[in-house]
């Protein structure tokens, strides 16, 4: 045991406590940083070597302290869970947002929706039946028919506009996924290098976690840890990032480069060094949500609306053609539409009030039996009510699911925050402790100094 080893011990304490204060200071500095996991310093006592030398023994009382590690407080399992919940959350959130927007455009129940237009249309036929000779009553029927056709077309157009917006969103999301994937590949590489040369990779790991989280939010991707510290990411089982190489997510079908629809469902492929693989359906995350909306939910509503427009036009036209107009000629179809896109193309085909076939008998009399029949000719109202009912139920269910998922997500986020979040009180305490320990180590040094002073300068002096 050497004379000055005590000084070294005190010096190690000074060093260690300065690092401890650095760690606390860094934690405090990053208290509000997104994705930062708090660090914890681990010290270890420096003492006897296991076997100092052959036939020797250690006689010291410990040689101070050193930093054994600076831990990054994160739990890989909790992170996996958080990524999964965030993926589901993003999926439900986007569905909820879009469906609520579409729903507010429906305007039911109210005085301005399709249901009100159907009832008004029926009412106008009754008025015409009461007054078959009146041009005013005939014009009113034409006006109400046009209002009804407009109301259906507006709904169809709202959905088409929303689909168009969402197709652009898919393109933007895909671009972001590819940027994130190449960032993650680069980060993986840096982490591998840092791990090899022993540098602290904490900041890189924080970045890696953030990138993986965002990828999960966008696509529901799953990340698995690599031996070198990086992450491999795959979307629905198809690898996107492997080590330091990133594949490219591409839209295989459904969306043209200009953001239009090509008529087929949206599918994705991932292209990497080994070729191109189709991503199976059922993605979650933002992209999964938008894809489901564009492939299933919105087309289903449009199809429902198309069926209603067709039913309305067919039933009214059939009855209208059974009657005779003011001049006594057989009635012509009242509504026209393009088969296949009835809701967006339905329009009133007649322009002259006299062409309305109110009469049930030829010859130009004032018979109004066909007008009365037309008032009750269509059962489209019930179909429309069913459509609105099922759509409303879907929106309500998505809203409920999103609210439930929100509770789950914030609970998982809370658990992560418990582990990884910075508590200022805690850091203040560690800082104080380190400060005091530093002061004490300095005092040890002063004491040793005075001991050496006594030994070196005063020993042998008798005065």
């Amino acid at each position, binding site marked *: 045991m050497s004379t000055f080893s005590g000084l070294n011990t005190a010096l190690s304490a000074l060093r260690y406590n300065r690092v401890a204060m650095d760690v606390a200071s860094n934690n405090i500095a990053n208290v509000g940083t997104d994705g930062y996991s708090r660090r914890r310093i681990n010290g270890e006592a420096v003492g006897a070597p296991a076997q100092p030398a052959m036939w020797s023994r250690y006689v010291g009382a410990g040689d101070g302290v050193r930093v054994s590690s600076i831990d990054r407080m994160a739990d890989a399992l909790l992170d996996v869970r958080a990524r999964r919940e965030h993926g589901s959350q993003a999926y439900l959130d986007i569905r909820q947002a879009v469906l609520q927007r579409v729903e507010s455009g429906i305007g*039911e*129940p109210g005085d301005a929706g399709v249901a009100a237009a159907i009832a008004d249309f029926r009412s106008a036929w*009754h008025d015409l039946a009461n007054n078959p000779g009146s041009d005013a009553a005939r014009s009113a029927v034409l006006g109400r028919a046009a209002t009804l056709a407009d109301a259906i077309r507006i709904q169809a157009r709202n959905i088409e506009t929303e689909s168009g917006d969402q197709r652009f969103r898919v393109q933007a999301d895909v671009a972001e996924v590819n940027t994130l994937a190449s960032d993650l590949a680069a980060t993986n590489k840096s982490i591998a290098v840092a791990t090899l040369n022993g540098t602290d990779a904490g900041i890189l790991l924080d970045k890696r976690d953030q990138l993986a989280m965002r990828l999960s939010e966008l696509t529901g991707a799953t990340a698995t840890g690599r031996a070198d510290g990086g992450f491999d990411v795959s979307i629905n089982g198809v690898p996107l990032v492997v080590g330091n190489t990133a594949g490219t997510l591409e839209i295989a079908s459904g969306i043209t480069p200009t953001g239009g629809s090509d008529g087929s469902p949206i599918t994705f492929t991932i292209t990497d060094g080994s070729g191109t693989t189709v991503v199976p359906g059922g993605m979650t995350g933002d992209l999964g949500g938008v894809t489901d909306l564009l492939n299933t939910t919105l087309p289903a509503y449009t199809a429902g609306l198309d069926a209603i427009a067709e039913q309305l036009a067919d039933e009214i036209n059939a009855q209208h053609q059974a009657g005779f107009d003011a001049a006594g000629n057989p009635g012509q179809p009242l509504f026209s539409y393009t088969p296949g896109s009835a809701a967006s193309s339905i329009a009133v085909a007649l322009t002259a009030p006299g062409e309305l076939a109110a009469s049930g008998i030829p010859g130009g009399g*004032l018979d109004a039996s066909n007008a009365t029949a037309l008032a009750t000719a269509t059962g489209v*109202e019930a179909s*429309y009510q069913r459509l609105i009912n099922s759509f409303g139920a879907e929106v309500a269910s998505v809203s409920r699911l999103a609210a439930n998922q929100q509770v789950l997500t914030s609970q998982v986020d*809370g658990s992560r*925050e418990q582990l990884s*979040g910075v508590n200022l009180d805690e850091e203040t305490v560690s800082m104080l402790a380190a400060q005091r320990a530093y002061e004490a180590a300095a005092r040890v040094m002063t004491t040793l100094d005075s001991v050496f002073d006594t030994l070196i300068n005063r020993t042998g002096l008798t005065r």
Partner: protein
Amino acid sequence: MAIQRVTQNMLSDRSVGALQNGLSRLAKLQEQLSTGRVLNRPSDSPTDTTSAMRIRSSIIDTRQFGRNANDGNGWLSQIDSALTNANSQVLRARDLALQGANEGGMGPAAREALAAEIDQIRGGLIDTANTNYLGRPVFGGVTAGAAAYDAAGVYIGTPGAVNRTISEGSSIRVDVDGQAAFGPTGSSVFDHLDALATALRAGDQAGISASIGALDAVRDRITTTQTEVGSRQIRVEAAIQAAQDNELRLSTSLSNVENADLPKVIVDLRMQETAYQASLAATARVMQPSLLDFLR
């Protein structure tokens, strides 16, 4: 959830989350209060939305049935007064015929005077038979013309029913076929009056008494028609009343489904407001203290 470790971020996140929840509940209540409706979109309650749509459509229908019935009532009233008028004219013609049938002391001039009045009555009856409602002859069926009978008393209407739908699936005829009320062409009241005038001028007693019999039959016919019109009118008036009652009932149901229960919403709003203020106060207290406040 057991909380092992609380961080400042966690506190602030939770506070913000709680404030957001409180605010969104407040916003929901505020929407209900300012629109006065609990049903603002289908997802608020899909089932109630369907009910509301049905009731709204029924209200429009009921209102329309009321309008139809009112229109029908106008027709039937017009017909009723026309028939009353026709009845009294025929009665007057019969009186004149009875005078003409009184053989003694009836010179040709007196009979000519009777015949001239009969002609006048006939003209008046043709006018009555051409009674209009809103420009349509009520005895003319579905004719597009303005008259049911021409000046010679010949039926020129188009036979056909004018119906009014007065409730779901039930309609009522609101016109009367001229030939049913005034007799078929060839033996209509106008033909009988014509024959009567001719018989009076000719002093043909047998013809006059035949005409009296015919006029009695005409009066029976008119009275029967009037009775039938009266019973139809009762139905139409009942339908008007039913439509009004239904509209009131349906509006009440719609209000029950769609509208907000104001006292309840206001009480809820006060409660949410209190809860929101409490969470604001809690946030303000929790966020402030820090160990640094207590260290020198």
